[in-house]
């Protein structure tokens, strides 16, 4: 009886691994894009709330607002590119650079905290996407 069940389980596990192999990179891609989209959207619609993060510029200045708006726009574009898989590796590389800058800035200004480490995780995801070659649900044409 167990001899009959084992091949079935192995087959199920194999299918699960194959499914994960097929779709996990896509899930990672979409989730990374959602993170970028969320921050990009909020930076665009409420830039004043984010000026405190701009390094080297007074948070109350209009320069800081402009920088947040530009940052938010870039994040939104990268999000669209990553979610749809357009120039994925390039978009992921740019996203990795942006997140790296954020991690460095937060570390320098506030030290290594749980907040910073969370961004390190996002950075890792972006770096992973720069080498991704197997993607499903990609916009083509």
């Amino acid at each position: 009886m167990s001899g009959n069940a084992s091949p079935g389980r192995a087959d199920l596990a194999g299918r699960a691994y194959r499914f994960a192999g097929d779709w996990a990179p896509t899930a990672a891609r979409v989730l990374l894009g959602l993170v970028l989209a969320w921050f990009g959207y909020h930076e665009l619609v409420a830039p004043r709330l984010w000026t405190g993060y701009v390094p080297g510029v007074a948070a109350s200045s209009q320069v800081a607002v402009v920088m947040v708006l530009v940052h938010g726009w870039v994040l939104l574009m990268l999000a669209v590119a990553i979610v749809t898989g357009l120039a994925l590796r390039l978009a992921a590389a740019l996203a990795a650079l942006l997140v790296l800058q954020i991690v460095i800035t937060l570390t320098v200004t506030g030290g290594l905290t749980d907040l910073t480490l969370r961004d390190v995780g996002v950075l890792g995801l972006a770096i992973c996407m720069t080498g991704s070659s197997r993607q499903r649900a990609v916009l083509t044409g």
Partner: protein
Amino acid sequence: MRIAGENIGVRGLTLLALAGVVGIVLGIHGWSLRHQGVPSGFAGPQVSPSTSVGAPGKASKGSGHSAGPTSAPAQGPSAPAPTSSAAGPAAAGPKLSSQAYASYAFRVWPGPVSQAASTAATGLVIKVHRHGSGITVAASVAGQPPATPKFYAAGATVYVIEAALGDDSGNTDYNLGDDGLVVTDTQGRIVQ
């Protein structure tokens, strides 16, 4: 079309262009609200004389460097001049509960102070003392010079406004741009 070795078709370019336009429209909307210290869906018309605590966020990070006005409580971009003074109670404004940011208000006086309120007050130094028939409130950014206490009549309630608790970590508030301080009278109307 090839960009850095990757192909982007007509549909892709169209989508990116569309996203770019949407981003610009959102950015124009955000720029039009740049004088508001709170998000567009947060406070609406800034009729309340709320005083932002430490708009220059960098001052809160304990890094030792600061930028912009750092005297506390620093005036947020949307905050009109405080209407209260040490000489006496301030004129009351609208009810806090009528403000869109009411859901982001965490009571710090009188106690007990909730865990969420403690987190919301991260990076801030809020001192409330009984003083005669009322209380004095001094709020400043941690690491910055203490603020001048202001007097409020008895029954006043002190709230800290924090739009996003996610920018607080440990004893650090990475972004004070979404923080504020509100004092209400016994009717729940904003006096600061």
